[in-house]
């Protein structure tokens, strides 16, 4: 029996990311309850109150295969939440997300690293966390080390690494197998500029081979240089969407206004 296929798989084959009317509501207790006892008391008193916070509000985007897509906006505008929704970390409260292809999240590099394990052991652990098979990691092992420039420290525990080294290793593992979709959140702000260039070069090479890239950044230069299209998120809603340079200039104008 074939899997039930939604219509959009047939009509818009070239779109690999569908975000349709996505809203994300975080339901958080109004007061931080410390434990089960307090919770039970509050529940009995009917004093359990929740604060409903909409981190995203009816956001829709479609990203084509091989596109470099930018997301800009101020802190707390919902950029990271949008990436997390695409990365399957957070499930949309309303709406629908469809990602066609293997998605590599580069939300926070080295998120799955264990400080007591060596660099070598962490490569395998991180590979498994990203859903790579052991075979895939073994095949690319030397290349991962070479790209990360960790070399002689590979058998030292990760806690001895600098932040830059951790980020390099994280990027290196996450991009060891070319993903269909890459979600990149400000990760390029760590590491020296030379390594940043290297990362961008690899991302561009992937893009040429058909990888779709979604980039969240505060660097407007980068959005203008790399992205074709972009959105500006404000208060969980799309303020402007369209051609990257147009979005950037409108966003910068708005920033100037609030400052003035």
């Amino acid at each position, binding site marked *: 029996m074939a899997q039930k296929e*939604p219509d959009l798989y047939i009509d818009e084959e070239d779109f690999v990311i569908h975000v349709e009317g996505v809203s994300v509501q975080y339901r958080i207790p109004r007061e931080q309850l410390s434990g089960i006892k307090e919770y039970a008391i509050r529940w009995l008193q009917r004093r359990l109150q929740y604060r409903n916070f909409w981190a995203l509000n009816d956001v829709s985007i479609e990203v084509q295969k091989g596109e470099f897509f930018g997301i800009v906006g101020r802190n707390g505008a919902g950029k990271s939440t949008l990436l997390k929704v695409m990365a399957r970390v957070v499930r949309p409260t309303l709406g629908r997300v469809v990602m066609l292809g293997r998605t590599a999240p580069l939300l926070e590099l080295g998120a799955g690293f264990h400080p007591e394990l060596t660099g070598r052991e962490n490569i395998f652990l991180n590979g498994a966390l990203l859903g790579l098979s052991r075979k895939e990691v073994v095949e690319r092992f030397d290349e991962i080390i070479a790209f990360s420039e960790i070399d002689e420290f590979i058998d030292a525990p990760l806690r001895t690494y600098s932040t830059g080294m951790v980020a390099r290793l994280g990027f290196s593992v996450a991009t060891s197998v070319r993903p269909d979709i890459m979600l990149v959140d400000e990760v390029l702000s760590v590491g020296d500029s030379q390594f940043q260039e290297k990362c961008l070069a690899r991302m561009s090479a992937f893009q040429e081979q058909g990888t779709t890239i979604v980039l969240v950044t505060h660097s407007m230069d980068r959005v203008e240089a790399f992205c074709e299209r972009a959105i500006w998120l404000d208060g969980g809603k799309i303020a402007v969407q369209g051609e990257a340079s147009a979005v950037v200039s409108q966003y910068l104008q708005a920033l100037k206004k609030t400052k003035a």
Partner: protein
Amino acid sequence: MKQFSMNCYDSSSEVHPFVEEFQALMAYRGLVVQFVARAIKTRYKRSILGVVWTMLNPLLTMIVLTVVFSQLFRIQIENFPVYVLSGQLVWTFFSTTTSSAMGEMIWSGELIKRIYVPKSVFAVAAIGTGLINFLFSLLPLLIIALVLGVSISPAMFTWLLTIPLLSIFSLGLGLLLSTATVYFADMQPVYNVLLTIWLYLTPVIYPIEIVPQQWHWLFRINPVYYFVEAFREPLLNGKVPGWEIWLPATGFALAIFLIGGLVFTARSSEYAYRI
């Protein structure tokens, strides 16, 4: 038409979360292996004694308890050391896997917030780690059983059947506890107290005979009692336990596994921002 592969993700997929979690777990089985290997490695790293301790710990407790019950209480049970040791192995497996399933969930909070993994990998890895430690400590039990002259018969090996039952029971409870710990920060200490009470309500370290008949209903409503009995009887007396043991053991195992699995997966989309 695009094929729908494991790599694709649809947030509105109509697959039941329980089934979805199972499929994802299969895809991430390499991760489970890694977690188990990491737990075993960190436990036994830098000490050959690590392995020895796993075996020695229950042995020492066994010796103490045997002395206490045979000398102090003057209770004579045939092969009491085997009685204590076998009960203890089951109890240790149950208590450590359930509490470490919960502990792993907390420690992995930072991970869950950042990347997608099937959330049940932590509980499943805790069971896997428990199984390996269980196998290590099985060796001294079998040796002692042989030394003390417990009769060997094919029936003796029916205890093997308790292992899968106990595993899915512990997994189910571990998932329930993991769910609870996301919402209640004090779940761990609460559970530790419960475990202590639970241990005394289970005939693990004391002979069942010292408990007056009128309290035996307490054992009958205690799932762990059935696992202990089903594991111990064949080893101790070479007898296959009857249906009055197997039926409740299987029933409790399946029920708790299903409840735990359903509750855990129904809530798992909230963990990323609640933990």
